[in-house]
């Protein structure tokens, strides 16, 4: 029987000739990422060494990445002090892949890692963030873990007792219609699978729609794979992966794509016809409460958010800017734009998108997680509704349990900003085409 991508990656990383779903392995970790919660990882890392008489030592500092993004710039003395402690640790242990709060090199971890070429096809990538699944877009096996587990990785360099996950094959075919994109594909899929439908499983993406999709779009699919409970999402690396890594991430060393065998064993196959897909919206308070836009069009919104590790990339900002250019955000609506990284911010500045947003009345914020997880800025008032390109709409997610969050694509968000109600972008622009 043939092997899935994840089975091949875990066999290589565990030094075995072959592994199958259900086997327990201890793979070597190629990259271990944390954000502000590195503060807790550091605490647990020191805890491991307590009473051992040994000096705490990171197995390989070159494989650690730390990116400040959740609360940047710090919103409180507590966060600022945690960030300061992390900085001191980074200096002490010589961690080079450290992205502090900077306009040029900073940003959201799930954008910083790909754009700097830290993630390679076939790699095992662990992050103390559930959306670490994003990096499957580059053909890596990437998954989220807790802080204590990361402390263990820092000490040992391996992921302990990993059960090789079974894989669900997702085949997406057909040409995406105008104003329908990767976000609509993944929202539709999460609705189809449900929030626990892929729990402990991997989603492996196939089909001509995926092959034609750029890395920016594939990151959206893998990012939100966790919303169906998936351990990881993965797009087998192909020419586009190599193009992205060579051209955009400027990687020069050898790259080895891992592809599944034709007779690989999948627990389930799901097929999606992209050519019939409509813009999708995830309604409060679960990500799998997904409806085609017609079912919720007209719903009043108070805040529009464009950004996050899901949809804060240049493509996303481009779509939104083209809809908003020369127009105005509706009265009574606050529109917040968060580019995913400093690099994207600078590109969007040069392309004129940021100017288009500001002139339309949107507020352009600094790169970071922004209001997505309700810890920093852009909180909602009681009874208010947000329409957001982020990835979660759980009760209280944007900081207020008495508010509602709807999730959508950048096109839907931008079209809705013009009207103040959830709006089908196909109707917002004459002819539906951009």
């Amino acid at each position, binding site marked *: 029987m043939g092997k899935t991508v994840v089975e091949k990656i875990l066999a290589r990383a565990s030094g075995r000739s072959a592994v199958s779903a259900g086997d*327990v392995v201890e793979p070597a970790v190629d990259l271990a990422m944390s954000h*502000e*919660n590195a*503060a*807790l990882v550091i*605490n*647990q890392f020191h*805890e*491991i*060494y*307590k*009473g*051992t008489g*040994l000096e705490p030592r990171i197995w390989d500092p070159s494989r650690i990445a730390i990116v400040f993004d*959740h*609360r940047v710039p710090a*919103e*409180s003395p*507590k*966060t600022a002090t*945690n960030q300061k402690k992390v900085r001191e640790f980074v200096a002490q242990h010589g961690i080079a892949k450290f992205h502090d709060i900077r306009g040029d090199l900073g940003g959201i971890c799930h954008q910083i890692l790909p754009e700097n070429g830290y993630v390679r096809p076939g790699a095992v990538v662990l*992050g*103390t*963030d*559930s959306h*670490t699944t994003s990096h499957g877009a580059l053909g890596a096996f990437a998954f*989220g*873990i*807790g*802080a*204590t*587990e990361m*402390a*263990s990785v820092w*000490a*040992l360099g391996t992921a*302990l*007792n*990993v*059960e090789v996950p079974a894989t669900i094959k997702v085949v997406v075919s057909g040409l995406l219609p105008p104003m329908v994109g990767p976000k609509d594909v993944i929202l539709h899929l999460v609705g189809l699978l449900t*929030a*626990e439908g892929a*729990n*402990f499983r991997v989603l492996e993406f196939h089909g001509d729609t995926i092959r034609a999709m750029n890395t920016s779009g594939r990151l959206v699919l893998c990012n939100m794979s966790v919303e169906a*409970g998936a*351990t990881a999402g993965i797009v087998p690396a192909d020419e586009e992966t190599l193009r992205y890594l060579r051209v955009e991430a400027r990687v020069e060393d050898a790259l080895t794509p891992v592809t599944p065998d034709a007779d690989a064993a999948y627990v389930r196959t799901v097929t999606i016809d992209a050519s019939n897909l409509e813009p999708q919206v995830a309604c409060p308070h*679960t990500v*799998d409460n997904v409806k085609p836009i017609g079912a919720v069009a007209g719903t009043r919104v108070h805040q529009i958010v464009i950004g996050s590790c899901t949809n804060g990339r240049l493509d996303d900002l481009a779509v939104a800017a083209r809809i908003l250019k020369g127009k105005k955000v509706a009265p009574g609506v606050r529109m917040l734009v968060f580019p995913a990284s400093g690099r994207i911010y600078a590109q969007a500045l040069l392309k004129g998108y940021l100017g288009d947003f500001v002139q339309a009345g949107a507020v352009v914020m600094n790169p970071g997680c922004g209001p997505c*997880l*309700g*810890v920093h800025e852009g909180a909602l008032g009681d009874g208010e509704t947000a329409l957001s390109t982020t990835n*979660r709409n*759980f*009760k*209280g*997610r944007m*900081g207020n*349990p008495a508010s509602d969050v709807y999730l959508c694509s950048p096109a839907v968000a931008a079209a809705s900003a013009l009207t103040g109600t959830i709006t089908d972008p196909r109707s917002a622009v004459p002819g539906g085409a951009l």
Partner: protein
Amino acid sequence: MSHVVLTLGDDVSTDVIYPGRYMATVLPTETPQFAFADLAELNAKLKAKQVPPGSFVVAGKNFGCGSSREQAVSTLKGYDLIVVAKGFARIFTQNAVNLGLDIVEAPAVVASEGDELEIQGDEVINVTQGKRFPIVPLPLARQALIAAGGLIAYTRKRVMEKAAK
């Protein structure tokens, strides 16, 4: 034997267990104060120590979905709550095992607040309702960590073995 202090439905997210706005608080000694912070009544009872250790939270499918935040586990561990659910999300499962929070997967479990429960072997017994529900064992890969007394102890042992070589 202990009482059920809270029942919840499916897909209880980490934002419900430990709201994101308290994520700047990370230490296991400090996180318990924010357990179920948006369920004000329960949070107050926990903080007032009116919930005995070993009390049960009973939930539906996919408990702990969402964020990888370990606070969602340490906050419950701080009160020694036992979570019985029809199912658990993967990262929450791992974090619970790593930190030694008792989680029990019982896909058919039925319980109301105030019911008395007992874990006996591979069954959850609802004493009040006179019903028994089978338990699904934790993933094989996680059992070695429980046997070692949690992940810190397990890794400490490994680090010392490595140093001895």
